[in-house]
């Protein structure tokens, strides 16, 4: 069996600053303690190191962004990463606090070898926004220790793996702190030294736990607990700055949509609606619903729609956190395509409708509906663009009607033809009896009618 371990050394830091794209040094502090837990490259360039006293760090930095360690958001980030890697492993398991273990052996056939698999995983994670190191190993523990030590092995050769393991020091073995100190005090500094000691003696002196740990390092293939896809999708990003413009939310949303894309593709579903909750500085929250007519699983589709929504939106107050929830899942169906099979008219038409609805609003995008009724104003109507009610009722009427018949003086009009009597509606509340004429005025053509009492109305125009 072959395992691939992904180690995210700055998971908590990067999860805390996920919505932040300012080029600033970032520090992650442990609440109640004085040391820097994690820091980004800008901070490292200025000389800050993990474990440094925070006051020393502040002296080194002119400006920096701070966040407190939050185990919950770290866990959430790990889950999102597991979602993103879901398609890269037959089995995936969370290794809290900051690692993912992928069973790679059975995937090699799909990807055509270890090297392509490795590259594909690498490109996939490139846009995740997280720093990582990864390594193969013959056992889960081996892969983990190598990845944590930053030794990136892309090999199936056990001898090379064992050689790499031999370069590790006792500190890199992830042992219990007290045992580690005792071993170092005894002059045992490296893994080969430790390995050479008789196991029985070690067990006697340091307890059975150490022996098991060492045994499992080289000979273990116990599958760890498997990660299962959650039934619903939800992700929150806390912004470390206050977003004052709606367009500024696009960046954190883009990140979340990428995870959503992996989630939907892993479950082979399409999503028809996104719910976005914006938490404001003053404690209020706004909700946004973004529907897509045909449903989509692609980040690019959703991004185009969201862009349209955000462009028109004014924030009631600066935003401090964004939550994305996906609703209304649908199984994927095959799109019907045209004769050559290279275009998808129905899908394109649906996308176009989604875009127009997003920009102009639902009341401003309508479709025509037809009913069998002699009265023109009842026979034609407007319906919601997503509905379909197809009836045929062709008539020799003008192509455009006034919303309401308009009372007119008939004198300037010249009657061309008529009358056509339209009589109906005695079955409901609006009985109508009218004599329609085609009339001309200043060379434009109109449709006018006379009511029983002699009053003339303008009803339509022959455009």
């Amino acid at each position, binding site marked *: 069996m072959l395992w691939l371990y992904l180690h995210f050394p700055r998971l908590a830091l990067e999860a805390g600053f996920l919505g932040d794209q300012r080029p600033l040094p970032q520090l992650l502090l442990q609440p109640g303690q004085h040391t820097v837990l994690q820091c980004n490259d800008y901070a490292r360039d200025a000389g800050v190191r993990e474990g440094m006293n925070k006051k020393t760090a502040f002296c080194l930095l002119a400006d920096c962004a701070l966040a407190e360690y939050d185990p919950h958001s770290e866990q959430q980030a790990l889950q999102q990463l597991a979602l993103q890697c879901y398609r890269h492993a037959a089995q995936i398991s969370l290794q809290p606090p900051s690692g993912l273990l992928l069973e790679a052996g059975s995937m090699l056939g799909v990807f055509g070898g270890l090297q392509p698999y490795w590259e594909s995983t690498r490109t996939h994670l490139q846009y995740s926004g997280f720093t990582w190191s990864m390594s193969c190993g013959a056992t889960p523990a081996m892969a983990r220790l190598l990845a944590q030590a930053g030794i990136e092995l892309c090999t199936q050769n056990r001898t090379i793996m064992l050689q790499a393991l031999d370069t590790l020091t006792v500190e890199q073995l992830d042992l219990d702190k007290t045992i580690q100190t005792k071993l170092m005090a005894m002059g045992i500094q490296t893994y080969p030294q430790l390995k050479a000691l008789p196991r029985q003696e070690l067990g006697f002196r340091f307890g059975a736990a150490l022996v098991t740990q060492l045994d499992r390092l080289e000979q273990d293939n116990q599958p760890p607990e498997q990660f299962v896809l959650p039934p619903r999708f939800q992700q929150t990003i806390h912004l470390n700055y206050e977003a004052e413009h709606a367009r500024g939310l696009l960046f954190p949303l883009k990140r979340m949509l990428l995870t959503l894309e992996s989630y939907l593709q892993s479950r082979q579903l399409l999503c028809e609606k996104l719910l976005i909750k914006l938490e404001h500085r003053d404690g209020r929250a706004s909700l946004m619903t973004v529907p897509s007519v045909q449903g989509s699983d692609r980040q690019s589709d959703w991004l185009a729609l969201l862009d349209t929504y955000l462009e028109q939106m004014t924030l009631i107050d600066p935003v401090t956190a964004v939550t994305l929830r996906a609703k209304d899942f649908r199984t994927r169906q095959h799109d019907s395509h045209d004769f050559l099979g290279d275009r998808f008219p129905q899908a394109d038409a649906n996308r176009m409708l989604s*875009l*127009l609805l997003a920009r102009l609003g639902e009341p401003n995008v309508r479709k025509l509906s037809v009913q069998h009724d002699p009265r023109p104003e009842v026979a034609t109507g*407007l319906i919601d*663009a997503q509905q379909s009610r197809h009836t045929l009722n062709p008539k020799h009427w003008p*192509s455009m009607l006034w919303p309401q018949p308009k009372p007119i003086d008939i004198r300037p009009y010249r009657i061309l033809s008529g009358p056509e009597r339209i009589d109906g509606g005695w079955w409901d509340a609006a009985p109508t009896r009218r004599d329609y004429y085609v009339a001309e005025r200043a060379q434009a053509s109109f449709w006018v009618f006379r009511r029983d009492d002699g009053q003339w109305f303008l009803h339509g125009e022959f*455009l």
Partner: protein
Amino acid sequence: MTMLDTLTEQGRLWSARHWQETRIPAITTGLPELDPHLPGHGWPLGAVTEILIDQRASGELRLLLPALARLSTQDARWQLWLNPPLHPCAPALQQWQLDTERVLLARAKNANDLCYSLEKSLNSGGCQAALTWCEALDKALMRRIQLAAERARVPVFLLRPARFVQQPSVAALRVHLHADSRLDVLKRRAGWPRPDISLSLPLTPEH
């Protein structure tokens, strides 16, 4: 290929003797008296056609309905009607053989929304034709619409009042429809202006 060849092929350059041979993708207008005067023998595909009218109800839609009706039965994409001045009467359109299921009516409040909707619709690939009633449009917006139409390879019609006749326009084809069913071709690709074409535009279809 030289630039001359390229330009000739695209119909941007033409020689006076062979103008009718220049190939311009188009769909027939359905009006036999108009087709011979238009490059490609019909309404151009992938270009903006501007129709200027003296007043409303002088036949501007009847000029287009035969072509729009034919397009509407071709595929399942939308025919976008932006900002129609009155309510379209569906039974009448059906009499013209237009598939009313294809018509998507939209109302845009300002020129920006209008241009955005038109551009996005054309770029989405879900639009078979666009028909827009509009007034003033600045040059940049017009240019964007023209580019989107070229990419989408569908006809785009702008219906505007005749007072914009003197304003320069990037539309590939400009015609002026008079109230007495006379039509002037003000601008066309691969040809000189051609005034005074008499058309017969019946109030309702003759069949």
